[in-house]
């Protein structure tokens, strides 16, 4: 009995750590959806590209933190360019066209990574290698640092949206893009900026997560699937809901993997997704009135 309790506590920590990274991926996704109704199928590839850029910058500079910073900035700029080139011309068209466009971008980025970096997974060394004792486990501090950093990034985004001048522009545009534009807010550029922010956050999570798994060209796929699940469970476009859903879904998976294999534990996410779609299609957490 004592053993099970320990296990549950350990899995709670694990679930929160994974949940925070997932939240970082998902908040960009939900922000992009909330403001321009674009389901960004290339989000997982921006995550993957962030991880690869992390590998490259780390190899050149030797600093993990510089790698995190540069990968985030470069992918944010790339996101801005992608939005201007592929999505801006589609504003006002059928949303299906943006799904096809972002899906196309995801294929291009994935194959570019395969061509550029090859099929063998790369490693990002952990910047913090010390451990602490969690019951009978030597638990890496780095995992705790990931959760804290993710929370910090999401917190900064929240503060920016709440108090920043451009944050108010973003919220006004989410609520009523026509009226926002009539108030002089350059809505097409707000879209570009939001896409860049979302891309940068995906890249940051890619670098942070890199040390825990290998970096490879298909690593975005798992994450994008989970991110889509939590975005739906949290309510499409609802930032707070996505964050809560990320932690909730990750905890469910972590607890499930006490009894079944981690691969089977993923089923827990889908169960949550299906139940949400059946009973609370607007999302598990407070529906956002527009």
């Amino acid at each position, binding site marked *: 009995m004592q053993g099970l309790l320990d296990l549950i506590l350990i899995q709670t920590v694990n679930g929160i750590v994974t949940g925070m990274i997932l939240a970082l991926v998902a908040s960009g996704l939900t922000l992009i959806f909330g403001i321009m109704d674009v389901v960004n199928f290339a989000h997982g590839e921006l995550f993957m590209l962030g991880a690869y850029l992390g590998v490259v910058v780390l190899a050149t500079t030797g600093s993990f933190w510089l790698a995190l910073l540069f990968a985030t900035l470069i992918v944010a700029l790339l996101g801005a360019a992608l939005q201007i080139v592929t999505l801006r011309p589609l504003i006002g068209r059928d949303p299906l066209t943006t799904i096809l466009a972002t899906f196309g971008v995801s294929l291009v980025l994935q194959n570019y990574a395969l061509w550029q970096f090859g099929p063998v997974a790369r490693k990002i060394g952990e910047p913090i290698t010390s451990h602490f004792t969690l019951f009978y486990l030597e638990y890496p501090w780095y995992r705790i640092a990931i959760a804290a950093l993710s929370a910090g990034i999401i917190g900064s985004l929240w503060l920016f949206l709440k108090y920043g001048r451009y944050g*108010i522009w973003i*919220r*006004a545009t989410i*609520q009523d893009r*026509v009226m926002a534009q009539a*108030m*002089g807010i*350059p809505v097409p550029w707000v879209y570009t900026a939001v896409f860049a922010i979302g891309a940068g956050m995906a890249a940051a999570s890619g670098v942070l997560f890199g040390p825990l798994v290998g970096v490879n060209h298909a690593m975005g796929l798992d994450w994008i699937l989970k991110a889509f699940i939590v975005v739906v469970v949290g309510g499409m476009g609802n930032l707070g809901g996505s964050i809560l859903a990320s932690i909730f879904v990750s905890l469910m998976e972590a607890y499930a993997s006490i009894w079944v294999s981690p691969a089977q534990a993923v089923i827990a996410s889908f169960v949550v997704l299906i139940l949400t779609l059946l009973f609370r299609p607007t999302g598990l957490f407070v529906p956002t009135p527009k």
Partner: protein
Amino acid sequence: MSAALATAEPLVRLADVHTYYAKSHILDGISLHVGRGEVVGLLGRNGVGKSTTLKTIMGLVRPSSGSVQFDGREIGGSAPDRLARLGIGYVPEDRRIFRLLTVMENLRTGLDRRGVTENRKQALLAKVFEYFPVLGERRGQAGGTLSGGEQQMLAIARAMMLEPKIILLDEPTEGLMPRMVSQIGAIIDVLRHDGVAVLLVEQNVPLTLASCARVYIIEKGAVRHHAASSELGANDEVIRQYLGV
């Protein structure tokens, strides 16, 4: 056209503007003008193209032909954000308050423009809080929680934040209590006093005649009658024919 109805240098001029929504012809060759600092009314029954006229000026609807000029330049087809920065304020029919933004944040959407100093911002805010004390009291409250009348005030105050040369007012008295209607009339007087032109779309004939120097009567997307308010007020026949009141 009598001399009293002409304007030396119009701020807004529409000449033979046609607009379509899908296949329906909404504006059918409308022509009108508003002078600097002038308050002009647009009257007409529902669905004759009054709101579309304002949306066309604001760049929210693209004219398929004809000329739309603002301040001496052709603006037909310009983006609304550019027109807002040039000096056109828009108060839409359904107010379109940013419901989840506070009163203050709603105002800041128009205030946080390039080249507006902090002093200027404070002066503008002080001015609207003087005209609309209730907005000052509720500055931290979400826009969606205000009453209809308060939302209308916020919509007008928000447009004033742009320091516009003209405000396009779309049925500001719709659904308001009589006391609020007279307050809207007072606000229009304040705007006129500040030298802001107003193009007022209304169903309320007495308010329009009292507030506006000139009135256009629109039917089927074109101007059918154009007169000074004093003249129109004495002409029950025209009002009955076009407005049915």
